[in-house]
């Protein structure tokens, strides 16, 4: 049966066994597993973070995954990019990853684009997640290795109202947070924390990194993504809602830093920058819309 012909997706006996350890969790259950099956996750960057996150998400039963990266596999990638081997050197990361994930996660519908994501190419590239995004079952993982790409991706996610989970790692420092303009606009966006004129001294290619540090951040990114997707049907928060402990607001309104030397995590509340060049316009439009409906 093709995915499009399937009106109401269901789990077969094999699915129940495969995903049993997830279904056992009351927070997931059969309904949650089915929900994941209808989700589409876009992963930009198929390096250490992107590959590991893709593996976790594909094997967890996410229905569709789109991989985007114009890089090719290099020998120096192999200590962290565990899906690749020497035989893959010189090939496009996104295409090799798609092939290997298809074997590991036969239930997952995979798409691969061996190209860079730009604001221009994004329209066509993301057209096939539009339906999932309207149904609040789409999400984008930023797993890129430079600040310019991260700024473009944030802008794209704000423009498309696509939830974003951003993770990064260089040397012994990791950072993680999620942005969702529909569910928690008060948390702001990537630009609210790191505006366009931010100077980035660190990246993996000039700083070095240990593989397991990348693994920690990729696991957290995948974990955050799964929980946001599972809670996507929770009520949308209005602008005045304050984050509550244990709720999804808590996951959306936090900025986490990981120190891979001391193994310590630090979290801080995110705040929207009222003058943010990227998310302020959509905030103003939404607030105007909300006021209009209140005064009706």
């Amino acid at each position, binding site marked *: 049966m093709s995915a499009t012909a399937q009106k109401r997706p269901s789990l077969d006996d094999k699915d129940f066994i495969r995903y049993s350890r997830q279904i056992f969790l009351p927070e997931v259950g059969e309904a949650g597993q089915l929900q994941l099956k209808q989700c589409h996750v876009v992963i930009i*960057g198929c*390096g*250490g*973070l*992107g590959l590991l996150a893709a593996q976790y998400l594909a094997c967890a039963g996410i229905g569709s995954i789109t991989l985007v990266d114009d890089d090719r596999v290099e020998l120096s990638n192999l200590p962290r990019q565990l899906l690749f081997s020497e035989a893959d050197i010189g090939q496009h990361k996104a295409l090799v990853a798609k092939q290997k994930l298809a074997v590991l996660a036969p239930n997952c519908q995979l798409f691969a684009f061996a190209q860079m994501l730009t604001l221009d190419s994004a329209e066509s590239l993301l057209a096939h997640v539009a339906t999932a995004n309207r149904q609040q079952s789409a999400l984008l993982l*930023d*797993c*890129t*290795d*430079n*600040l310019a790409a*991260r700024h473009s991706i944030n802008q794209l996610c704000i423009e498309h109202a696509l939830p974003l989970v951003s*993770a*990064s*790692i*260089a040397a012994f*420092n*990791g*950072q993680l947070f999620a942005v969702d303009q529909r569910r928690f606009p008060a948390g*702001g966006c990537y630009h*609210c*924390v*790191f*505006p366009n*004129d*931010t*100077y*980035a*001294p*660190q*990246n*993996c*290619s000039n*700083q070095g*990194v240990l593989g397991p540090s*990348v693994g920690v951040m990729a696991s957290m990114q995948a974990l955050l993504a799964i929980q946001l997707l599972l809670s996507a049907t929770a009520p949308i928060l209005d602008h005045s809602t304050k984050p509550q402990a244990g709720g999804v607001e808590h996951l959306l309104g936090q*900025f986490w*830093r990981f120190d891979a030397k001391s193994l310590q995590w*630090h*979290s*801080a*509340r*995110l*705040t*929207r*920058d*009222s*003058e*943010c060049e990227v998310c302020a316009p959509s905030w103003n439009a939404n607030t105007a819309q909300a006021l209009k409906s209140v005064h009706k």
Partner: protein
Amino acid sequence: MRFVVILIHLNNVPQTLQQPLSLQALLEAQNISQQSVALVLNETVVPRHRWSSILCHHEDKIDVFAVVAGG
């Protein structure tokens, strides 16, 4: 003559300020380039454009850190 002694913790290091400083002035005094860091004041991220208008208070906990863009 009036003395104001403000004790703050900057990246877990106690610092004494002899006069009230804005977050921006604090970074300047520490030779930290504003464009290279994000700032957390008492466990809340403070957007960069507000750094000039917020004064350090006694017992403030301030963390500054560089953006990490690697993946």
